[in-house]
């Protein structure tokens, strides 16, 4: 199916060389846009995962003062639309920060990273909590019996086991955040969808517009499909 589709696009380009030339001309521009998508998703996932693991551990804390804020954070930001969070960070954060008399610019793409890191952290927290709770309680007791503190038990005994169980849902989340980067185009970040709109406006040829948006769909598909296939494989292996 995919092969047939690629063949059809290739045939189309061969039949119309001027279109192929145009695409070749604009491809670097589109690629630069897509690099932004990749940059945003990698940074958002890194940030979101770090914060999410901490929040997930906090959700299981025995101290109410630690637990309650984490639970509230996860509840609110797991239910919030990604677009709303991107708007929130874009419009609430200043466009530059003054630190020690220096003006540090705070570009829109960094705000988009934070906007996507927030839901990523909330989802990672839930994944972490689920994985932590899937470890039988006697293991905690055994760790305690061996003289491990709670933090040490978490670090050396529980977390390594959680990693295996948390990996497939975490990869699903990664795919979802990668696709979320397209939303950044709506706050003016220059990513792939934005670049495609620029290109199709600049050329203003119907067939080129069609081809550009097909390219955009294809780029995202190439980015996300391998991840989702790998996730399925891992899930199947864990289910056995």
């Amino acid at each position, binding site marked *: 199916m995919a092969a047939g589709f690629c063949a059809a696009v290739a045939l189309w380009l061969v039949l119309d060389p001027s279109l192929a030339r145009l695409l070749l001309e604009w491809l670097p521009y589109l690629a630069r846009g897509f690099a932004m998508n990749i940059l945003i998703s990698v940074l958002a996932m890194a940030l979101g995962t770090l914060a999410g693991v901490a929040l997930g551990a906090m959700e299981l804390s025995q101290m109410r003062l630690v637990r309650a804020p984490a639970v509230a954070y996860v509840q609110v930001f797991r239910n919030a639309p990604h677009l709303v969070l991107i708007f929130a960070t874009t419009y609430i954060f200043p466009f530059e920060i003054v630190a020690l008399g220096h003006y540090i610019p705070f570009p829109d793409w960094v705000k988009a990273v934070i906007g996507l890191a927030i839901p990523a952290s909330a989802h990672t927290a839930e994944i972490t909590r689920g994985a932590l709770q899937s470890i039988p309680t006697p293991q905690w007791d055994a760790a305690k019996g061996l003289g491990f503190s709670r933090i040490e038990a978490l670090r050396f005994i529980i977390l390594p086991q959680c990693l295996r169980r948390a990996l497939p849902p975490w990869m699903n989340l990664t795919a979802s955040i990668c696709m979320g980067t397209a939303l950044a185009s709506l706050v003016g970040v220059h990513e792939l969808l934005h670049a495609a709109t620029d290109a199709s406006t600049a050329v203003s040829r119907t067939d080129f517009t069609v081809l550009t*948006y097909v390219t955009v769909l294809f780029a995202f598909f190439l980015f996300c499909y391998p991840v989702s296939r790998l996730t399925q494989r891992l899930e199947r292996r864990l289910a056995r």
Partner: protein
Amino acid sequence: MQDAVRGFIALAAQVGLNFDFLTSPFELRMWLDGMTTTLVLVALTIPLSLVCGVGLAAALTSNRPWLAGPARAYVELTRNTPTLVQLMFTVLVVNMLISQALGGAQNNPLGAYFWLVAVISLHVAALHAEALRGGIEAVPAATVEAARGLGFSRLEVLRVVELPLAVRTALPAIVNNLVNLVKLTTIGYAVAVNEITYASLMIWTQRDNVVELMIVLLLFFSAINLAVARFGAAVERRLAVPGYGQ
């Protein structure tokens, strides 16, 4: 009512939140319209996505390659590309081609709203279909064979035996998809459908009260999603098969 609104505005002002726009009939109307539009979108797309999802799941699990193949390709394409890109693709490309075929945009009865509903429903339908497929495949082969032995056709087995069981196993995933659907309605902003995000943006560009509206937006979506999750849990309890997971 007027007094209550004024009281609320005064109270919010004390903690530094600016809700003055509630006194402007024009902005208030637009804002409430936005909320209604979002709720209508949710109410339209949930049943549509479920119906299309069942159809897709039936195609996915059918023995006919000409039916299962395209359904599989559609599901993979939909799940692995951003909904926003799909929406832009349909509005800017598909809709344009339709307009050209009909001889101008003035003859094209399909608008942004139509494509928004279609894209969201069909996108979430693909997610439902995957969940249901898992459920259908989890039905014990012996059960299916017994039904076939009783003289049920392939379609009857699906309708009477497989789907009712599949729905029960797939319910948590389906509710998850519906929560996703509610969040997806915000992309209507991109094609200027006046849903709540769009309406809020129109107001905060005028009044610079982003934080205030953001709080309302987060509460609004939390409330809808809480309702969806509660409803899902109630359906789950009602459909629970005795002896499984209790």
